[in-house]
Each structure stands twice: as structure tokens, then as C-alpha cells.
């Protein structure tokens, strides 16, 4: 069964690849990154360029493996020693957590590596815009591999607030900036 499923997947990949080739388009043709938006909340376009932002950290839980990246303002804040008790991140800092489904390394190593993209979690600091959620706006965009598109989860900019309240003393940021 598994083999059949894989074979089908290979065929559909081949078809998609052929279609893309026919259109002469790069593999990013179908994404809706520029338009997807949480109703009454964040637009993914507010994080434009996140694909090349600098690494803050990585993490792994169960079948998810992720990297957390930040915009230059966020990286600069980290380099001043944040997050720290009682200190606030400045307005304009942005971070994105890229979650992948994990799979065993296809090269035979005892390692977990990314499989398909699962979702993007986004955070932006804007004290005026998000006064009810500690100055932070939150968004989650789930990725669907079949349609190569993102869809917003829930609505409003508060989706991560209750979870992050645990580290309110550090301005709601869990992730630290490990040495590299």
C-alpha cells in the first residue's frame, strides 16, 4: 500500500513538474504568500523576505522540526541581550517560526530532517496596534502541499497570546539566541 501511495505521489510530482516546466515558471508559481491574511489579523506579506532572515534558533517536538528566524531589528534586539526579565522588545521586531513535518533522513543516517512544510507562526511587535496582547500580534499560516498554498488559522492577532503569557516577564518571547 505504502509503495502504491508513494508511486502515486511520484506521478503527481512528475505531472506538477511537467506543468510548471510547460509554463516556464519557477517552482514558486502557485503560492499565495502575497495575499494570504488572517481575518482581522496579520497578513503574511508583513513578513516579506522571511525566507532569508537570520536564524535565531531551532527546536523539535514529536514529529515537528522547526527553525526560528528574525528580521534585522529582531536580531539586533537579541544581540543586546534580550529576552531578559523586565526588558521589552522594540516596535518593528518580527519573527517567523517555520515548522516542518519531520521524517527520518533519506540518506540512511539516524537523523530527523524536514519533510513537507507544516505551517508558519509569525509574531510582530507593534505596541499601538496590539495593545490588548502585550504589544505583539500573532499569526499562523498552515501550508497545504497539494495546492502549494497557505491558509490562515483562526482570526484576529491574538492566537499566540495565551500560550506566550507564561513568559510575559520576558516580553512574551520563549526563544533565546544560542551561540553560533
Amino acid at each position, binding site marked *: 500500500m505504502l509503495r502504491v501511495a508513494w508511486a502515486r505521489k511520484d506521478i503527481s510530482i512528475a505531472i506538477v513538474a511537467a506543468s510548471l516546466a510547460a509554463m516556464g515558471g519557477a517552482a514558486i508559481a502557485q503560492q499565495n504568500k502575497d495575499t494570504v491574511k488572517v481575518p482581522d489579523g496579520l497578513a503574511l506579506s508583513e513578513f516579506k523576505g522571511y525566507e532569508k532572515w537570520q*536564524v535565531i*534558533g531551532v527546536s523539535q*517536538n514529536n514529529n515537528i522540526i522547526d527553525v526560528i528566524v528574525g528580521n534585522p531589528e529582531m536580531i539586533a534586539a537579541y544581540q543586546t541581550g534580550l529576552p531578559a526579565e523586565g526588558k521589552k522588545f522594540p516596535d518593528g521586531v518580527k519573527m517567523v517560526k517555520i515548522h516542518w513535518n519531520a521524517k527520518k533522513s533519506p*540518506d540512511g*543516517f*539516524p537523523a530527523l530532517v524536514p519533510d513537507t512544510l507544516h505551517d508558519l507562526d509569525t509574531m510582530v511587535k507593534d505596541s499601538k496596534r496590539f495593545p490588548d496582547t502585550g504589544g505583539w500580534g500573532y499569526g499562523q499560516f498552515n501550508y497545504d502541499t497539494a495546492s502549494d498554498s497557505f491558509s490562515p488559522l483562526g482570526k484576529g492577532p491574538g492566537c499566540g497570546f495565551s500560550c506566550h503569557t507564561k513568559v510575559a516577564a520576558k516580553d512574551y518571547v*520563549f526563544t533565546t539566541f544560542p551561540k553560533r
Partner: protein
Amino acid sequence: MPHISRMSAVAIGAATLAVFGGIALAAQDKYAVQVPDGISLSDFRGYEGWAVVSVAQTKDVLKVIVANPTMIAAYRSGIPGNGKRFPDGSKIAKIQWTPKKSTEAPFDVNVPDHLQDIFLIEKDSKRFPKTSGWGFAKFNYATQTDSFSPDGKGTDCGYACHTPVAKKDYIFHPYQKR
């Protein structure tokens, strides 16, 4: 003479830091570290800010793989899946941390603890003709002294290990969708 003036400058800098009660910055100029007969960490200057290729976890380490703009551009053009090879000037760094359980997160999650080592690979067909154009280096990190030290010598430390993926131009990690 240039050596002396440089030494003096370093000494003055160190003294200044000491006067100001300087923090751990005084430690090591990591970009002065080099593998004997091999690659200098300074070949990879700025890797801290490079874009992500992928991440991985083994029993012992949590890691991120980053690459310089030349290599990222190559990945995004379809290399190595399209059968082409990475161009000279491509550089890739694997940063490995020992993992720990987060004590703050409301769910069970592994996050970086200490930096363990960094693995570096760079493409220069003229410089590394015997290892398919790639030069390899590994630097171990010691938290206590906040310093890097080279592992082994020469430029071929990773070649044998990477040979199983010769078809992918010796690079294991694909550029992950994001």
C-alpha cells in the same frame, strides 16, 4: 613592524576592555582559527547571518544548516536536483547544538543548549581538486573558554562521509520549502 603595531593595538584594545570591566568579548577572535593545512574559519566570515537551508536532529545534536548567498541562489535555481553542480564560491555551514528540554514552553520541546561544533564546506575546484572541488573543515566549540578549535587537519575531513551523495554534488541537505 606591522606585527608589532597590530599587537599593540590588540593589547590596547584588551586593556581598554579590562578597564571597562569588559565582558566575554575579550575571549577569542574566532576568525583567526584555522585547521592546520586546511580551511580558516575566516573563509566563512558572516555565516551567523546566512539564510537557512535546513535543520536536523540526531540523538546528540540539534542543528541548523545555513549557506552563503551564492549557494542559496544555486539551491533556488534547482541545484543539485537538476543535475548541475554548485558553483565555485558556494559555502555552507552546519551549526550543531547539544539539545535540552525547554523548561518554559507549555509543551515538550527540545531547544539548543550549548554550541557543540560547526562544520564548514566550501567549493573551489582549483583549490580542492582531489575532493571534487569541496573543502571541508570542523571546528569544536568549548563553552568554558568560549573558543573554537580545529578538528583534525587538511581539507578532506568530510569527503568520505559525503561520497554517498556524490550525485547531489556531495551535499546531503536539500533547500527546504518555507
